[in-house]
């Protein structure tokens, strides 16, 4: 099992994701440099949080042109596990690997705080270790995390069950007060139709150890690690 964490200039969750993969989960880890053109045989590629290329112009708009992105697109087409977190989600949307876009928070302010997420899919390699309709406590940290899509895209996502995480209150109710950024339908994370490309705004790598305030993020990392083990065995 091998995780690859992509490093663009301006990425900052690379080391946190790497820490969790390597030190907490104990899986194999490699960093993937944006100028490289080789995924080094990774089973799961993480596009981490940060401000790739400064997020100048628009979040993720420049990162999608990085040399490594071509390989990442092909990797996703082959069914490889691709996981965009925060800025990584924004890059996936810009690259057309996921539908919709992330726009400015409704508050027009950056938000770094804990949120509750309702898990709506547990049949995915990313969420296999979550209970049905599990509520996860995972923090956000972004200024542009409001999920937006046109009505047709949105209803397609809903019909096909591509919404994986929704902002909810601690008891699991999806209510407007629990929406930290104005995302449509309280969407915090979505998956592609095939189920191998996940994008989410919250940061699971920030809550994989009790001393950081919670361990719900670890469920996602463990899901991927164990799923990939199964893939290798079969």
């Amino acid at each position, binding site marked *: 099992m091998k995780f690859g964490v992509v490093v663009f*200039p*301006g990425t900052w969750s690379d080391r946190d994701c790497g820490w969790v993969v390597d030190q907490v989960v104990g899986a194999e880890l490699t960093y993937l440099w944006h100028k490289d053109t080789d995924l080094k045989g990774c089973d799961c590629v993480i596009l981490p949080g940060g*401000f790739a290329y400064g997020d100048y112009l628009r979040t993720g708009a420049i990162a999608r042109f990085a040399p490594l992105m071509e390989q990442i697109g092909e990797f996703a087409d082959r069914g490889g596990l691709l996981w965009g977190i925060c800025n990584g989600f924004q890059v996936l949307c810009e690259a057309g690997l996921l539908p919709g876009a992330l726009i400015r928070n409704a508050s027009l302010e*950056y938000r770094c705080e804990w949120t509750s997420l309702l898990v709506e899919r547990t049949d995915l390699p990313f969420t296999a270790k979550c209970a049905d309709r599990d509520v996860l406590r995972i923090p956000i940290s972004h200024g542009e995390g409001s999920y937006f899509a046109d009505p047709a895209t949105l209803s397609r996502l809903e019909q096909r069950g591509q919404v994986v995480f929704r902002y909810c209150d601690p008891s699991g109710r999806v209510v407007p007060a629990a929406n930290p950024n104005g995302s449509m339908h309280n969407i915090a994370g979505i998956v592609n139709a095939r189920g191998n490309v996940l994008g989410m705004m919250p940061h699971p790598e920030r809550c994989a150890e009790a001393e950081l305030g919670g361990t719900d993020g670890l469920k996602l990392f463990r899901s991927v690690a164990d799923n990939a083990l199964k893939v290798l065995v079969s």
Partner: protein
Amino acid sequence: MDERKLREVALTPDEYKVIVEQLKRAPNEVELGMLGVLWSEHCSYKSSKALLRRLPSSGAAVLQGPGENAGAVEIGEGWAVVFKIESHNHPSAIEPYQGAATGVGGIIRDVIAMGARPIALLDSLRFGPLPDSTRHFDGVVAGIGGYGNCIGIPTVGGEVYFEDCYASNPLVNAMCVGLVRTDQLVRARAEGAGNSLLLVGADTGRDGIHGASFASLELDENSSERRPAVQVGNPFLEKCLLEACMDLAHTDAVVAIQDLGAAGLTSAVAECAGRVPGAGAVIDVALVPRRERGMTPYDVMLSESQERMLVVVQRGREREVETIFHAWDLTSAVIGEVTDDGLLTVADGREQVARLPIRLLTEGVPVRRLVGFAPEPPFDLVVDALPPLADAGATLLKLLASPNLSSRRGIFRRYDHMVGDATVVPPGGDAAMLRVKGTRIGLAMTTDCNARYCHLDPHLGAQLAVAEAARNIVATGARPLAVTDCLNFANPDRPEVYWEMEETIAGLAYACRVLEVPIVSGNVSLYNDSGGESAIYPTPVVGMVGIIDDYGKRLGAGFRHDGDFVLLIGSSHNDLGGTEYLKVEHGYVAGRPPGLDLTREQAVNRLILAAAQSGYLHSAHDCAEGGMLVALAECCLLGGMGVRCPALRPEPPLRLDAAFFGESPSRYIVSVPSRAMPEVQSLARRHHVELSLLGLAGGDVLEFEGQLKLPLADLRDAWEVLVR
């Protein structure tokens, strides 16, 4: 010499005379500009130098004291913590967003220059009252977030106060904390004649020319015309610079790293060479990569363009180092070399444009002998004349909603305070704490200063600032390690302001000696004054770092366990002078600040640390502004749990208002599981510290029987006024 010309470079006729005497000739225009910036108050400390020598700066664990880019203290397991605080007041007054952003960028580079990876930021802020100061407040908070969030360093702490005296002179003091292996600590010493000077990072533009001189004048109605003196930040570029500098640890070709801050290239080269006796440097401005055309040598030498570093590289190994920077798409250029002639020689291609002795630049400025004179003491407070407390509950709600005491969540949720996976005590309590990954070590950090106390009594106020910082560290279970200070004052040419400086520095020195915390770095900001009435309070901000050997034993401030005993540790007196209660309820800023006995302070701190170490405490929180009752309300709000207490009946002469809202220092609120009560009581006896039982934690109201009874929801509504 034309006086107007001198004023432009902020030199006095007397200083000019010294320059001519020393050089035995008149300086040319470039030289005059270089001397002007380096002899500015901001760079030379000419008004404060004599006083600063009184501060204690040594200690067994200190690896680097003042004089370098930042201080460094050993923390064990091969690690050193590196930290410094710096002001960016004048730029933030003119252009709040960029002023604050570049303040953050500048202090980060100071830590990087020591070879350390920055792990945390803190910001100490002062504004005039809202809503009038909204432009300053919003701009500064957005600027701090804009820079810190983008570069990926968590902003974990700080403080903000609102007082009339900061209306035209807001204060923005930024602190950065970093970590480095002790054997990889870098110093900015230009050793070895022939070694190359490599300029790295942003191209040089015209921004920020005369910034240092600008920061050394009073702000006036023409100050906004000085806007070109404010720099613009690019956090993305600095992130790349940061990572590249971390990669430099893989090579031994680097001799020194120096940040380019105030006074730009002039200061960076002069300081770097100035730290090595006899060293000099020769640079060619034609080799400096530029952002715009038509820049003169004067412009290049004085530019304060951000995100630049000077790297001294072993001769012949330039390519090796440049490869590292190029991997991050950073521009670098060899612009000169180290010499052994003690001179800074500047050429523009073949033409020599300046040649000045390094010592004249860095140490030549005549130290200003200023006179301090105590002003009329502020009017005294006759405590007995105050009416008795009418409604403790109503007063508590009023205090919780006061801008100086209300919840800071509305601010710190705009800052990424979690990136790095190290924040084990988040902002909102006493000090923040970060773990040192790969060890069990926790580093607690805080900034503190109650400037109202300092205004009423600068000597005592400065001591109280140090004590308060230490208590915030101790409340997390950590022991104070060392201090960085940012001394903000008005115009020192006024005798009463210089007196404030003398008193403040004496108070700081005394408290740091008794509490055994050396001051390892710092900064002085003067002329925070728009003339006359608008002078700021003396504001000596104390940035403190503490250490806990096992962060598993850290303490939070909130009540978390139903049925815990809630205790007040320490003694209360009629300390109402200078309190928030006096201002909010009675409208006075008056009296003598709370009395402080540093020996007692030490005893109380030792008791808390011993109890925390033995696992007897479930929480600890310092009693600060607003007194015991506000601290108690905070414990409830932070833990989401109430407390029930019998009526408070203080023993005369202690008044009820002073018992609730007085600000006697050296006090904590702790929660203790019932089984540990005997041990805590015997520890208190052994340390000769007073301990009183307030009540029991639990439920969702804060109650003193018959005196006040408030649901947590009402407390929260009052407290979270800044959270929209």
